[in-house]
């Protein structure tokens, strides 16, 4: 295993980077002008957070890389994001359900990180927490609005939940990187956040009139990098194209 702190920072940065990119794919084609603005705002926040986390990761690594080198010059197997965030946008309902599930975890995780023993991490968490609290307010409200809207919007939101629920479990898996972070009081045990997440989820889904899928099966392999989905590679071919095609250029 490489330096667990570097791994941990890449996880935080890659989640924000990959989801920020996905959300930015909505540019100009959202269902309403207000949604265009809100989606661009969310993407902008996440790209900003990714820059902070990956710059710190590069600094910790000390190999002369920076956030851009990490974002644009690593291949799929070096990415450490959750499988959930690399899932394609689908319809607006699937995009917002993905956002909601991630935001609910992200908010709780960042809140715990504000107490990190590493002051650099606590500072990034504090800044991000403000933004993510707003993301969660909005995504939860949208899930409720569409879940308890028309018959069609309800059906689409239930389909989105059924499709994405198997990616929830990975957010709460604890592995050796987490263990090292827990020991150093840098980050919380992901398992400790599950109960709070579950009760919040139940509350929102009840209001949205949506049914939580049964079973606790979970896809894994994103945060460890062991096995990403096929989607990530396609995303990277687009995202990294200029940097790969013109490696000598500065932009």
């Amino acid at each position, binding site marked *: 295993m490489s330096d667990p702190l570097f791994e941990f920072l890449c996880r935080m940065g890659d989640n924000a980077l990959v989801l920020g990119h996905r959300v*930015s794919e909505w540019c100009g*084609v959202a269902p309403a002008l207000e949604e265009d603005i809100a989606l661009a705002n969310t993407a902008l926040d996440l790209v*900003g957070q990714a820059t902070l986390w990956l710059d710190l990761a590069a600094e910790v690594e000390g190999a002369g890389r920076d*956030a851009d080198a990490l974002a644009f010059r690593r291949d799929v197997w070096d990415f450490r994001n959750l499988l959930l965030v690399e899932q394609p946008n689908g319809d607006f309902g699937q995009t917002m359900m993905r956002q909601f599930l991630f935001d609910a975890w992200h908010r709780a995780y960042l809140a715990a990180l504000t107490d990190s023993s590493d002051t650099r991490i606590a500072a990034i968490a504090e800044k991000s927490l403000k933004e993510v609290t707003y993301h969660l307010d909005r995504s939860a409200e949208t899930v409720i*609005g569409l879940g308890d809207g028309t018959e*069609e919007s309800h059906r689409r939101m239930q389909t989105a939940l059924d499709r994405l629920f198997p990616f929830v479990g990975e957010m709460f898996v604890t592995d050796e990187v987490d263990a090292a972070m827990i020991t150093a009081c840098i980050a919380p045990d992901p398992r400790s956040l599950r109960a709070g997440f579950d009760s919040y989820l139940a509350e929102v889904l009840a209001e949205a009139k949506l049914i939580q899928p049964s079973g606790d099966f979970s896809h894994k392999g994103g945060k460890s990098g062991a096995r990403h989905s096929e989607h990530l590679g396609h995303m990277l071919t687009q995202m990294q194209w*200029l940097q790969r095609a013109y490696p000598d250029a*500065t932009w």
Partner: protein
Amino acid sequence: MYAQMIKSTGKGVKALEDMDPQERAFQERIDAGGKIEPKDWMPEGYRKTLIRQIGQHAHSEIVGQLPEGNWITRAPTLQRKAILLAKVQDEAGHGLYLYCAAETLGVSRDQLTRDLLSGKMKYSSIFNYPTLTWADMGAVGWLVDGAAIMNQVPLQRTSYGPYARAMVRICKEESFHQRQGFDIMMKMAQGTKAQRHMAQDALNRFWYPSLMMFGPSDKDSVHSAQSMAWKIKMNTNDELRQKFVDQTVPQAEHLGLAIPDEALRWNDERGHYDFSEPDWSEFYEVLKGNGPCSAERMAARNKAWDDGAWVREGLLAHAEKKRARKLAAE
């Protein structure tokens, strides 16, 4: 300029003495530099012309997201991606202010949207051109936003209050957009051989379409006089185009890029650059819907609207249910 070929009354400008007292008072207020507010009396032609102009401007902001959105997912650095996202977000915001300004004239945003999607209303010709390389993000900011500012700065003094106030907010953001475009061009022009090539190619493709943004020559612009009398158009098309050329030529020289016009030269006598007119037949084709990307742009907007119908209906139904539940609880 995001409004082109705006139809006004199509009649000549009336002399003050030919107006009835109400219209005369209206015109005198404008002549004195006063503002017209939504509840004030206004001639029907003024209202309709403004709806066309503000609506076309709003539509341009909305469609204008597409050529830049084309590069958000390929932006070469995290900072460039963030800046471009912020810019496109601003443009959606400008669309929103402008639709709100138009709504004060008694037309709904949904109606304006329907008119855009059916092709009844237009948006600026410039957004029917493709963005093919990263340098195009520079060219769009530098030239397209640069041309837009030429028109929008004077419109901060336009006679219709809500429009003037929207323009004040928009101008602040547009100048940031232009600077970021120039900054991209600078990096490209000082970059590798491939980057310099991209920069020159972008200038070659965007130069004449940018000149077209100001609309046809004054001698062919039939509706200008009335709009200028009403102060909803502050300068003639040719004045603004000349100002744009005069401003842009030294910038291109600074970048070390060549403007694709062999006739371009400084005219000492006029104190301005002489330059070639764009191909106006191309301009009229673009307005007819035959621009290189016209079909794609309209298809993208129509698809977004159709695909989003269930979302808008869902959220509306939810708001309705909430209101009903609240009423029942009272």
